[in-house]
């Protein structure tokens, strides 16, 4: 629903994930992560409505938002061309270039060129899957080609399979890559970038322009108060300073901002 309806009902229906560190994950049965802290801020930011949080698996999450079942997804969603056809995105909260992760000590892979023919794990229906063509182009430059691609319902399972050797590398957004490598330095190692720039942003249905503007205001508020930088440092280990300040609502804009 758009903002007026939300204010009338007094409830903002927010959907989050439970399986995508460091944005959303579960500690001892409770939601945790970057977006949990953001939600705390959002509650402080407005008193016009309550926030009702639902936790969904990634599968179907965006479809649920695009169909209006939820008002906004406060997740680590990435912007893609296909998604822009059905959703608008609030001003980005983090930059998201895609990187590969490999097993620590796997000496076969030293650079992107070595990925040729190796088995790759990505999440089904994800932005990373959508941006694989960029990797294909990179590999083609050195005469290589993409190996087998295995699609997972969520990333922890892909990491588990990377750890136990079923996969050779996993592609994920840089923040998640940093996170997993930081948590398990003896298991995983961060590789190089396999795509151009990208953005992490919250998707809102196309039919909610007022809500989009409201949330943009909230992001701006976070930036202005320095809270965003604090949270970025806390959860991502780095700050992203030159993020776009406006919402992204069409493909041309996205391509321009990402430099595709």
């Amino acid at each position, binding site marked *: 629903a758009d903002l007026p309806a939300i204010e009338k009902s007094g409830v903002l229906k927010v959907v989050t994930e439970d399986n995508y560190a460091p944005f959303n994950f579960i500690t001892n049965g409770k939601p945790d992560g970057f977006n949990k802290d953001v939600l705390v801020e959002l509650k402080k930011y407005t008193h016009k409505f309550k926030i009702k949080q639902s936790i969904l698996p990634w599968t179907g999450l965006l479809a649920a938002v695009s*169909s209006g*079942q939820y008002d906004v997804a406060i997740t680590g969603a990435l912007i893609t061309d296909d998604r822009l056809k059905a959703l608008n995105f609030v001003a980005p909260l983090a930059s998201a270039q895609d990187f590969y992760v490999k097993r620590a000590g796997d000496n076969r892979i030293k650079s992107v060129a070595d990925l040729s023919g190796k088995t790759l794990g990505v999440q089904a229906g994800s932005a990373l899957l959508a941006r694989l063509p960029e990797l294909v182009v990179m590999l083609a430059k050195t005469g290589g080609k993409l190996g087998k691609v295995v699609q997972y319902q969520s990333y922890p399972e892909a990491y588990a399979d990377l750890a136990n050797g079923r996969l050779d590398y996993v592609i994920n957004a840089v923040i998640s890559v940093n996170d997993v490598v930081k948590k398990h330095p003896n298991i995983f190692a961060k590789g190089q970038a396999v795509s151009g720039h990208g953005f992490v942003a919250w998707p809102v249905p196309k039919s909610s322009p007022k809500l989009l503007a409201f949330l943009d205001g909230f992001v701006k508020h976070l930036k202005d108060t320095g809270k965003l930088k604090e949270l970025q440092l806390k959860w991502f280990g780095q700050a992203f300073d030159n993020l776009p300040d406006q919402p992204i609502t069409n493909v041309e804009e996205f391509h321009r901002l990402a430099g595709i």
Partner: protein
Amino acid sequence: MDLNAWILLLEGAWTTLWISGVAIIIGVSAGLLIALIRQKKIPIIEQLLTLYISLVRSTPLITLVLFLFLSLPALGIHLEKHIAAILSLAINTAAFNAEIWRSAIRNFSKDQHEAAMSVGMTHWVFFRHIMLPQMIAVSLPPLVNEMSFLIKGSPAIAIIGIVDLTRVTNRISAVTYQPLYPILGAGLIYMIIVGVLVKLQYVAEKKAHRLAM
């Protein structure tokens, strides 16, 4: 696995149990209703019900869950995920329960109907006091059997994010990277739940035996 993991598993088991329980109650009654309606052989409704049963028979639960959860909103029906889960389990089990009830109705002895008529019972009294109790006794073993199938199929609801006994294992192993123990723990709890149902089925079979004339 620490105590915390076990607590999470038990919470998951509770979710599995209450969702399945509600689905069973709906499914058993809806099944009876469908069976009774099919007795009447109303032209178009009969074909629709046949189609429904045939479709549900070969549609996997996980497909049904995803279908209901993801596509009903497109029709403007907003489903809370627990409702979607209960609904899909119920839709699935009702089709099987309907067949169980139907065979109980079909095999019901005509003689008993005549005996009831000849002491002046009305159709309703006959159904309520003579037919239904026997149908329940005869159908209970297969119904309980279908209940254990429902429990065994219930992990399908995890895919839409319900933290049931199965999904808890992901949550635990997403932190520990040691999935084996939570899976075994969940398996054990499932075995206990279904094991109880199997025992129940056995008891119901003994009870139903009394009706064998």
